[in-house]
């Protein structure tokens, strides 16, 4: 019988509670405000994204696929996501679930615009 090397075995609860445990969560969202994901909404998004420890990625499929670090204003501004564009949010980290929930709430709330 093979012995499990010491230190490689975790009780499942340890995985859930461990602060550095990486959790991946993703969600599909649709840009709903008229002006699309322009500079001001991007700033709001990046400000919020930076409040989380998790890594955040935003990607766009379709004819002109793009991928951006959700914590970088410059990268996010290359998405050119107009109204109706579907984006995928990916969060990786201890607070991934909250991050995705809050960020999609911001998008669904049209960033406070029309």
């Amino acid at each position, binding site marked *: 019988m093979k012995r499990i090397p010491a230190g490689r075995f975790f009780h499942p609860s340890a995985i859930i509670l461990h602060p550095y445990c990486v959790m991946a969560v993703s969600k599909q969202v649709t840009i709903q405000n*008229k*002006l*699309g*994901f*322009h*500079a*001001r909404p991007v*700033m709001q998004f990046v400000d919020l994204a930076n409040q989380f420890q998790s890594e955040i990625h935003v990607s766009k499929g379709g004819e*002109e696929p793009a991928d951006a670090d959700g914590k970088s*204003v*410059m*990268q996010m*501004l*290359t*998405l*050119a*996501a*107009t*109204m109706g564009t579907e984006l995928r949010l990916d969060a990786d980290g201890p607070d991934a679930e909250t991050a995705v929930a809050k960020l999609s709430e911001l998008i669904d709330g049209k960033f406070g615009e029309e």
Partner: protein
Amino acid sequence: MPSMKLKDFIVQDAVIPELQAKDRNSALRELVESLAASGAVDQSVVEEIVAALIKREQNGSTGFGKGVAVPHAKHPKITKMVGTIGRSADGIDFAALDHQPVYCIVLLLSPENQPQQHLQAMNIVFSNLQKDIFRRFLRQSQSKEAIADLIDEADQGK
């Protein structure tokens, strides 16, 4: 939609390789006046556009970091997206996100009700500004010709 290119909206005659302005508001004015002098913007709306750009900056700096700023505004008299580039050797305080001076300004003016065009232009501007080499070359370009070459190369994806 075919990809937009920098040369589709950057008015090369209006590019300023050595900005005289030392502060944000005068830099915005210098660039808009340069667009007006080149005929890309009607002289009669210069004041309104400068005011709109300043207001936009007050709502949140477009100095997105790494020494670049992308001030932008919409105006009903603008019928076609236009833009210009200004370079400041000494750097200008734009209240940038990273609190660093701004050396390269890409100014964009969009028509109203054309959010797609605006987002496309932002896309092409930031795809380039994100590249270290593009920012470095732009910061070193001391003539209109050098900036025109850089734009050509960027548009060709070099």
